Every structure is written in structure tokens, then in C-alpha cells.
């Protein structure tokens, strides 16, 4: 069955269950506004969905009920018992038709005029109980569902249970090591470990969903809506890979649907109007999702006619919601906010899609129920931006853990701009008035001693060693001085108790692998509490004229005593592992970790019983890298001086006057992938311009995944830069001039795409 249809059926059924109680109570209290609203929303939603799913029978039924209920809401019609039973008759019919729809995949033909006529009858007079409202029994059996809807609570319990199993496994592992059991027990234990890891993985995935599942339904909806309404709309979606808790996705599905519907119906004008207004005939609607700190932001931006806040205000006055005096003192933004009030809508005519002022109040109510907000921004004639912010609860977020005295905290990675050492070269700490500031590469930012601010035990003022440049979701930028940056972890964040949230400093709690609870800092909240406002520091010194490319690296001391560094993005974890978990076989070191065997790279003898390892990941493959110690996370200019020969070191960086070798992650992964260094094609560079080949061409090729041939190697391709050059195998010739010369097959040396294409073509046949 069509996924949209299945969604509709499930949604309708859930809503029916939810309003069942309201229906019963409404019969005895027809004047109750809240009950009326609940039933109204139901028929309104059914009407909207049946419109774009092309279910005219349901649309007809729900439209009739909505009309009647709207009249009651406006006060133009009394709520008589006959009218109540007519509405209930329609709601029942909708339920039955939904069952048939599920069983047969389509709606049966039939006549609902008798039901709908019940409204007209009640209008004329007050006849005896309307017998026409009786429903002919529909002969259906609910087919068993093919998929199951599980309460998220149950998944939570499973998740908690599995986490407990993991902790128990770790204890068992320690006990087994001490007990020195036989190989059988070890084997069984390894099997258990694998199973546990599998289950944990599966359950974590069960809860997390990419938001593009939600976006998938939008294009068709927009197309159908545009078709019905005679609008031309181009929909763009962005950020579909943002991961969100499954429950959250369900909660924002309806609000998003409403927003999109509203936008196409009321925002985007007809092609004629648009052309007349000097806009392209096709309107644009952009839905984008992104993570900002501990929130997910979903933006719906259209370039339609916008919302006239003054007209909203007049509507509110007309509806009796506000007095003219109240409106006078309201700002534009406050007036715009009126669109979220029940009973206020700017639509001139009621349409089949939306426009009774029900959509937006439902949107706000639903989003606020999950702790989110909806904001609106609009310029008449230019369009509307609606922003939904929903919390990231139970979402796994990448975070850095930091230390202030004896306290450890987690900071969302997305809120960290960079990390610098307090005594670094381009860092100067000073005071401005009674506040501390720090100047980093010419940019001045407010400085907050986090340990002192959070009254951390064991933190001594002025003793902090590491400066973390933080950015709140509202744009507040400041520098937090902390004692140390500990680790980079993926953390499951849960909401903290109300008393803790009341401080405004924390976004939630999390339980890292070491089983010691940790608080996640709310960067925006801390900025607010410390009196740091958005925009401070930005104006003091503008960004450098030519922003140099920078990269974050993790500095460490390798087993051979050298100072080396690795791209921070590759580092998943820093772990201390037992040397017992490391074994050598077949000339390779392997580390048993969380039920997986990882290849281990070590450039020196292992230090002893405990080995500190970096867990590196290229996105698909993971490996471990044994180090003597982790020094720091720093950001450096991306001006690598590349190595002359391919190998584990990509090149040398200058950091605080010292030479630091940057590990060549590509070589490491390629080497450990078992293919050795064989997988990457070898390029021989030849030509008159050797300096250019080595300095410019080689790094480009290496970055693109090729290797550079040494003197004795058999190259897959020869690249000749300028001048004459011959080769036995494939040849790529580069020229100095941008314009080609007649009769010569060559590529301009700065035509990056063309060059890489040519090399790829040349090596495609001959990769060994």
C-alpha cells in the first residue's frame, strides 16, 4: 500500500482513539469549547489529508462536518442534539471508511448524502431525531497490520536493559581475566560480546531516524496541492540526513504538514499574481533541517506574498479576541504572532485545503507540547519564514568532554568553534573594564572562567589551560577557560530534572561509557547567565581579510617518542585498553574492543599493561592507533609541508614553533585494509618543472587518493608537466597555457577537474 495512505490510516485511527472520549463527553456538553475544538481539528485534518490523497468521499464528509462545526464556533449556529448526532454519525462513518480503505486499499462507492443532509435538516427546523443519520453497516474485518507500532517507552526499556547487559558484560570481562578461565569460556564470552554489540546497535538504530523520511512525503503533497490550487511551486529540501529521535519525528509530522499546506495555499500566489508582482511564476518553498546546539531547527521559507500583520490584528479585533487599544501597543512581531491564536486567520476565502485558523494554533500547540517553539518572520510581498525548534532529547550528539577542577562536563561539538591553548602564540588574555577578554589571532572575545563561573570544586581561578571558543544557538560567542579537554564522544542526552533545567545552564544529562553521569552544558544559557550577548566580539575586529584554511588536530606523543598529530574528525574515542586485549598474529597487531577486532597500528613497543589508543574511523572502517599520550586539541593553519615519500606521515606542520608530523590517515587505512598500499594507483611525475610537480601536483594527487611513484616503482600512469616526456604506459600531458595548442592532446595544469579526470581515465584500465 502507498506509504502516505498507510500513514493517513494510522493517523486517522490514532486520532479517532484520542477523541473517542471527547465525542462521548461532547454529547452531554455540546457547549464545551475545548471538546468542540478537538473534534473540529479531527475533521479538519481528515479533510486536508483526503484532499491531497484524492479521497473525495472522505473529503466530502469531513468538509460537511467542518462547515457545521465552524458555524458553531463562530456562534452563527446553535449546537443542537440533532446536530451533535449528525456530527457523530459522520465521525463514525469516517472511521468505518478508514477500515475499508485499509482492508481494500481503496474507498468503496457509496452515498453519504443522507448523513450530510442531516445538517441541512437540523438547520431548517428542529425535527425529531434524525433517522437518516443511521449508518448502514459496513461489512469489514480489520486486516492484521503488517507493521507494528510500538510505544517508545518499550524501546526505552529495551535500550536501558541492553545498556545494563553491556555493563554486566564489562564486569564479567574483568572477572574472567582475573579467574584465568579456559579457552572454551573465553570463546563463549566472545560470542556473547558480539551478540550484545549487535543488539545494542539494532536498538539504538530503532530509535533514531533520518528526518528525510519525513521530507519524503512533501514533494508529492506540494505537487498535488499546487495542482489543486493552480500554483506553481518548486520544493527544495535540505538537511535530510539530520538524525532525530523517532518519537520526535512523529511529533513534528503534523505541524510540518500544516506549515507546508498553509504556505502553498496562502503564501505562494498564483502564477499571474506572481508575474504581476515581478516575481518568477514558480514559487519557491524551502524546507531545511539542521542541528543547532541541543536543538533541531526546521525552517520553512517561501517567497510568497507574506503575512500582513496589520490585517491579522484587524481580524483578531473582529473576532473579539483583542481590543483596538491592545492592538495599538503591539509590535509587528507580536501582531504576526496572532496567527497562532485559535480563530484568527488571514485567508480571505475558506478553501478545501486550509484557512480556518485552525492549522497554526494546532501547530504551535503540538510543537510546544514537545518542548519546542515556532517562530514566524514575514515581510509582506517577500515571503514567510517559519522556524520550528525542537529539542534534541534522546538524540545522540557528538560532544567533547571537558574538565573544570573535579567536574567533567559535555559540550555539544556543534557549539564549539575552536580550541586553543591559553599560552598559545596568537592568544592574548587581557581585561576590558571589569571583564576578562581574550584576543585570538586579532579577534577579541569575552572570556569566561568556566570553573569559577560554575563554582567547580578544585578549579583554581586563572589556572585554566585550555580555551574553548563557544557559540550559542542565538549567535552568542565567547571563550570558556577550562582545565582540560578530555575526549570526543557520541553521547545520548536525556532531559534533566526540572530543578536542574531551572538553572538554565544545562541542556540535559548523559551517561558516558565510564558510567559516571555528566551534565551537558547549554551554551546559550551560560552566555545569558554570564551576561554575554549575541554579537559581542564580532564588531571588535572583523574576521581576517583572507580567511586561511584551518583544521582541528589532535596532538599526541607517539610510541617512538615523536610528536605527531591526527585530524580531529577522524578520532572517535580515546581509550585506555588492557594490553591483554592486544594480540599479534600474522604480522599484525589486533585489538579486541567491544566485541570487535580492530587492526592496531603501533610505531614502537607497547608501553605496558595499559595502552592508550586512539580509535580512528574513516566513516566505514575503524582502526586503533596506540600512542604514548594525548597532548591537546588545537586548531592550526592548513599549511602542511608534504612528505617526500608516501608513508604513515602525510607531512609536517608547524605548531607553536615545533615541528609536528601529521599522520596520513589515508595511508594508515589503506595499509590496514589488508590491501597494503597496493590499492591506490601509482603516478609517476616527470617533466621540467619538478618543484611544481612536488609542491602543487603531488599533494593534489595524494588528496585525490593516488600515490606518487618512487624511483624503482612501476607506475600506473606518468604525468608530464611541461616539456617532453615519454612513458611505456598511459600518459597524461599537462601544459602551461590555459588555451590548448593545435594538434596536442594536453590539459592545462590548473584545470583541476580535467586533470583528475584524465588521471582517472588513464589508470582505470591498469590498476593492479
Amino acid at each position, binding site marked *: 500500500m502507498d506509504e502516505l495512505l498507510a500513514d493517513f490510516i494510522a493517523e486517522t485511527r490514532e486520532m479517532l482513539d484520542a477523541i473517542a472520549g471527547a465525542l462521548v463527553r461532547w454529547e452531554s456538553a455540546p457547549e464545551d469549547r475545548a471538546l468542540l475544538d478537538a473534534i473540529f481539528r479531527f475533521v479538519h485534518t481528515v479533510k486536508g489529508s483526503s484532499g491531497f490523497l484524492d479521497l473525495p468521499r472522505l473529503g466530502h464528509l469531513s468538509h460537511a462536518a467542518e462547515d457545521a462545526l465552524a458555524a458553531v464556533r463562530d456562534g452563527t449556529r446553535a449546537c443542537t442534539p440533532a446536530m451533535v448526532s449528525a456530527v457523530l454519525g459522520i465521525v463514525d462513518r469516517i472511521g468505518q471508511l478508514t477500515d475499508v480503505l485499509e482492508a481494500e486499499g481503496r474507498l468503496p462507492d457509496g452515498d453519504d448524502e443522507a448523513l450530510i443532509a442531516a445538517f441541512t435538516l437540523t438547520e431548517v427546523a428542529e425535527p425529531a431525531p434524525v433517522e437518516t443519520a443511521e449508518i448502514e453497516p459496513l461489512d469489514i474485518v480489520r486486516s492484521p497490520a503488517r507493521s507494528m507500532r510500538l510505544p517508545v517507552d518499550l524501546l526505552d526499556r529495551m535500550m*536501558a536493559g541492553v545498556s545494563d547487559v553491556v555493563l554486566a558484560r564489562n564486569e564479567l570481562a574483568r572477572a574472567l581475566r582475573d579467574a584465568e578461565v579456559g579457552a572454551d569460556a573465553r570463546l563463549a564470552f566472545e560470542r556473547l560480546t558480539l551478540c550484545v554489540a549487535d543488539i545494542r546497535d539494532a536498538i539504538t538504530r530503532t530509535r533514531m531516524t533520518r528526518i528525510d523520511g519525513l521530507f519524503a512525503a512533501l514533494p508529492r503533497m506540494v505537487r498535488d496541492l499546487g495542482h489543486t490550487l493552480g500554483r506553481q511551486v518548486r520544493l527544495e529540501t535540505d538537511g535530510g540526513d539530520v538524525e532525530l529521535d523517532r518519537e520526535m519525528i512523529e511529533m513534528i509530522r503534523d505541524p510540518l504538514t500544516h506549515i507546508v499546506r498553509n504556505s502553498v495555499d496562502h503564501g505562494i500566489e498564483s502564477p499571474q499574481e506572481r508575474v504581476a508582482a515581478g516575481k518568477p511564476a514558480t514559487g519557491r518553498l524551502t524546507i531545511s533541517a539542521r542541528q543547532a546546539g541541543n536543538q533541531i531547527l526546521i525552517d520553512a521559507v517561501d517567497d510568497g506574498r507574506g503575512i500582513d500583520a496589520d490585517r491579522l490584528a484587524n481580524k483578531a479585533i473582529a473576532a473579539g479576541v483583542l481590543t483596538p487599544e491592545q492592538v495599538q501597543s503591539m509590535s509587528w512581531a507580536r501582531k504576526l504572532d496572532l496567527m497562532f491564536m485559535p480563530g484568527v486567520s488571514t485567508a480571505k476565502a475558506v478553501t478545501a485545503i486550509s484557512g480556518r485558523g485552525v492549522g497554526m494554533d494546532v501547530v504551535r500547540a503540538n510543537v510546544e507540547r514537545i518542548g519546542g517553539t515556532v517562530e514566524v518572520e514575514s515581510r509582506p510581498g517577500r515571503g514567510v519564514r517559519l522556524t520550528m525548534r525542537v529539542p534534541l532529547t534522546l538524540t545522540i550528539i557528538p560532544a567533547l568532554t571537558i574538565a573544570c577542577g573535579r567536574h567533567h562536563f559535555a559540550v555539544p561539538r556543534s557549539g564549539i568553534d575552536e580550541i586553543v591553548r591559553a599560552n598559545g602564540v596568537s592568544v592574548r588574555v587581557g581585561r576590558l573594564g571589569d571583564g576578562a577578554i581574550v584576543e585570538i589571532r586579532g579577534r577579541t572575545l569575552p572570556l569566561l572562567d568556566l570553573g569559577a563561573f560554575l563554582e*567547580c570544586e578544585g578549579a583554581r581561578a586563572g589556572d585554566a589551560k585550555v580555551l574553548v571558543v563557544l557559540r550559542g544557538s542565538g549567535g552568542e560567542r565567547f571563550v570558556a577557560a577550562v582545565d582540560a579537554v578530555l575526549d570526543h564522544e557520541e553521547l545520548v542526552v536525556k532531559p534533566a530534572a526540572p530543578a536542574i533545567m*531551572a538553572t538554565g545552564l544545562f541542556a540535559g544529562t548523559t551517561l558516558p561509557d565510564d558510567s*559516571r553521569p555528566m551534565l551537558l552544558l547549554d551554551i546559550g544559557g551560560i552566555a545569558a547567565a554570564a551576561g554575554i550577548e549575541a554579537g559581542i566580539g564580532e564588531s571588535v575586529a572583523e574576521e581576517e581579510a583572507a580567511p586561511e584554511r584551518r583544521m582541528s588536530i589532535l596532538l599526541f606523543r607517539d610510541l617512538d617518542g615523536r610528536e605527531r598529530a591526527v585530524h580531529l574528525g577522524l578520532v572517535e574515542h580515546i581509550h585506555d585498553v588492557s594490553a591483554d586485549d592486544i594480540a599479534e598474529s600474522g604480522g599484525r597487531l589486533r585489538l579486541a574492543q567491544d566485541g570487535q577486532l580492530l587492526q592496531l597500528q603501533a610505531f614502537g613497543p607497547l608501553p605496558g599493561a595499559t595502552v592508550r589508543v586512539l580509535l580512528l574511523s574513516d566513516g566505514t572502517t575503524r582502526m586503533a592507533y596506540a600512542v604514548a599520550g594525548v597532548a591537546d586539541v588545537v586548531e592550526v593553519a592548513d599549511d602542511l609541508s608534504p612528505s617526500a615519500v608516501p608513508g604513515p606521515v602525510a607531512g609536517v606542520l608547524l605548531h607553536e614553533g615545533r615541528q609536528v608530523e601529521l599522520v596520513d590517515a589515508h595511508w594508515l587505512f589503506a595499509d590496514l585494509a589488508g590491501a597494503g598500499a597496493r590499492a591506490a594507483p601509482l603516478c609517476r611525475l616527470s617533466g621540467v618543472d619538478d618543484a611544481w610537480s612536488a609542491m602543487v601536483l603531488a599533494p593534489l594527487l595524494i588528496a585525490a587518493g593516488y600515490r606518487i611513484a618512487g624511483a624503482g616503482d612501476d607506475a600506473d600512469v606518468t604525468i608530464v608537466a611541461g616539456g617532453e616526456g615519454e612513458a611505456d604506459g598511459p600518459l597524461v600531458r599537462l601544459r602551461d597555457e590555459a588555451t590548448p595548442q593545435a594538434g596536442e592532446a594536453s590539459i592545462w595544469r590548473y584545470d583541476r577537474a580535467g586533470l583528475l579526470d584524465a588521471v582517472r581515465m588513464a589508470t582505470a584500465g591498469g590498476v593492479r
Partner: protein
Amino acid sequence: MNDEALFLLVTIAGRTVATPAAEVRAVIEIEEITPIPRVAPHVVGLYALRSRVVTVVDARVSLGEAAERRFPAPGVVVRIEGHGYALLFDEVIDVVTARAAPSVAVLGADWARVVTGRITVEEQPVLVVSPAALVAGRERLAA
């Protein structure tokens, strides 16, 4: 209130009080907690109860008494409005069956806030305190 119910007998600042056992999820030994900076004084930290994080609340401080904490300490795990809490008492004594009656004692403001009734244990009256009120602490009194 005719039905007999189970109560957990604990001591706070030397006084024996009872708390409805139906609300108690577990009684645990708390060894080490993660302190929380800049929070209300009775909220003393976080504790990992297996794979869940619970918020540790000191019942003494919630009642306006001075903190006197030594770990390990007994913690009574309750769940309030979807959040897990561990209440720190001086001692967890026993579980008794009793019938709750209205409290008739004249109490100070701190105690009046948390007491919901009384039970009789071995012919001695014992006050019944509400875990939710202990968790809420003194802040709500001012509000």
C-alpha cells in the same frame, strides 16, 4: 482512608518518618555522585542507577536542615513527573503496614510542606512525608 498500605520507615535529621512504599521504586546504596553546580542546595548530584541517570536529592536540606552527607548513603528511588530521583535519608529502617490518618501535629513551615498525614507504628505516631514535596524543595514555598 480505610485501606492499609505499606510504608517505608526512614529517618531524617534524627526523626523517624514514613513514606508511601507504593511510590518507592527501589532502595539503593549510593556510593559516588556527580555534583551539579549552581543548583538549588537540596539537589546534590547525579547518580547512575544502572543505565539511567537519577537526580539525588538530600531530604535533610529540603527540610531546611544542614547537610551531613557521607557516602555510601542509602537512597530511595522514586519517579516524579517522568524523572527519576534518589532521596537521601539518614537511614532506611523498615517497611510497615499501616493506615494513614490526617496529621494533627502543629508543624514548622518546612515540615508542613512535606507532611501529608500520619501513621501509627508500635503505638508511636509517625509523620508521612511526600517524596514529591521533598524533591520540590524549599523553592516552591517561596513562590
